[in-house]
């Protein structure tokens, strides 16, 4: 068999698998919505605010509720001292917890 036939077959198989990967991802969307239902129900009924990803510290368990002094919140590049910091990036500046601008007029 010619080398080019083998090579083109290999790339053809890889491309077919690539298309299958895209189709598989698309097909999983329906299942994803179904699987998400029980989580969404818990979030709604308990008023949950965070995903349970890292349980090692308060500010990694509940990043949205963390103190302003937690890692990454002192300044944008203040790196975390826990290993999960290798996967979690600092929030964009200004911090998501920056004080809100008062929407009502301040009385003198």
């Amino acid at each position, binding site marked *: 068999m*010619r*080398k*080019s036939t083998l*090579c*083109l077959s*290999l*790339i053809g198989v*890889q491309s077919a*698998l*690539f298309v299958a*990967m895209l189709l*598989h*991802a698309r097909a999983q969307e329906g299942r994803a919505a179904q*699987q*998400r239902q*029980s*989580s*969404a*129900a*818990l*979030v709604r*009924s*308990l*008023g*949950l*605010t*965070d*995903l*349970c*990803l*890292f*349980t*090692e510290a*308060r500010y*990694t*368990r509940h*990043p*949205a*509720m963390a*103190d*302003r*002094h937690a890692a*990454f919140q002192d300044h944008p590049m203040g790196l975390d001292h826990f*290993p*999960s*910091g*290798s*996967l*979690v*990036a*600092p*929030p*964009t500046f200004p911090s*998501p*917890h920056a004080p*809100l*601008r*008062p*929407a*009502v007029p301040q009385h003198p």
Partner: protein
Amino acid sequence: MRPSVQRYRNILDFALSSLLRRKGRNLALICVYTLVVFVIASLIFFVQALKREARELLVQAPDMVVQRMVAGRHDPMPVAQAETIRAIRGVEAVQPRLWGYYYDPVYGGNLTVMATDDTALAVESVWVGQGVARSMRVKEGDMISLRGYAGPMLFSIQKVLPEESELVSSDLILMSPQDVRSLFNLSEGLATDLAVQAGNPRELPTIAAKIVEQFPDARPILKSEILRTYEAIFDWRGGLMVVVLSSAILSFIIFAWDKATGLSAEERKEVGILKSIGWESADVLLLKFWEGSVVSLTAFLGGVLLAYVHVFFFSASLFEHALKGWSVLFPRYRLLPALDGYQLAVLFFLTVLPYTAATLVPIWRAATVDPDAAMRS
């Protein structure tokens, strides 16, 4: 077969023979190339999937959570403030939330204890997340003991929360509000924070400002901020991983650049011979284009496919150590595929095109010189 196709096939045959002549070197290149694409694609898939889960699930979170800050730290909040907040125009409901952290000295894990008003929860019973059940090695009907303020408290496990909800409930212990108060010695008039629901989300900043005006120690956290936090923290370009990755990618770029641009004397001679026997410059360029395309396309497709299997079939097991960190209780969740065509296209253009282009420039230079000079050089 048409002659033009036959011509391309012949050149591809020759390109493959040329690659096979330097088998070891090219195989190493494809392996490293695939590995680099695999790591970057895994990171992209992983982060995309988590971002989507956060987006889809946390949209159900309360419109606003109001915390009380004392000396810069989160402090329990008087439940009485809920009434004042409820009176603000635009507020639909205010629900005091009662929750806290419990460190289990036996298993060394941090758990989240939360109160629920669900009437299905029996007295002195708890519902636990899959992670809690796994780390404590308990199941429905078993008893667990928690160290409360006034001494050990015994609870019967009424339900283990479903596996599908592990992404939000792995470390949860749900119990009645009275039990939470006894466990943490929280007085009746205090709650951890307040969950606020507003009729019109556009009024939330105004409501937040009014809350801060009335209670200067309050810290309102809007749902949009919660969602923004998750959008911001899961950024594949961020974190220490990128520092480690960038050095690996840089080494690969140097390796690939050297391989692609540095023509050896043997290759120059080969180009000279090909030209002297009648090959045109365009044929020589096509030959190198095929060589570059075969290497980069194989590596790209292989790397992306391996990354997909790694993240969505093996739950990104290679990242497990970084994910686990120092936590004892580790949630196990099967991520659902979330592919972003834009990011796949960026990955393709950043990996396949530069390499293929880098192989063409030096060969173009070599192919445009006189065959005699090329063979003698």
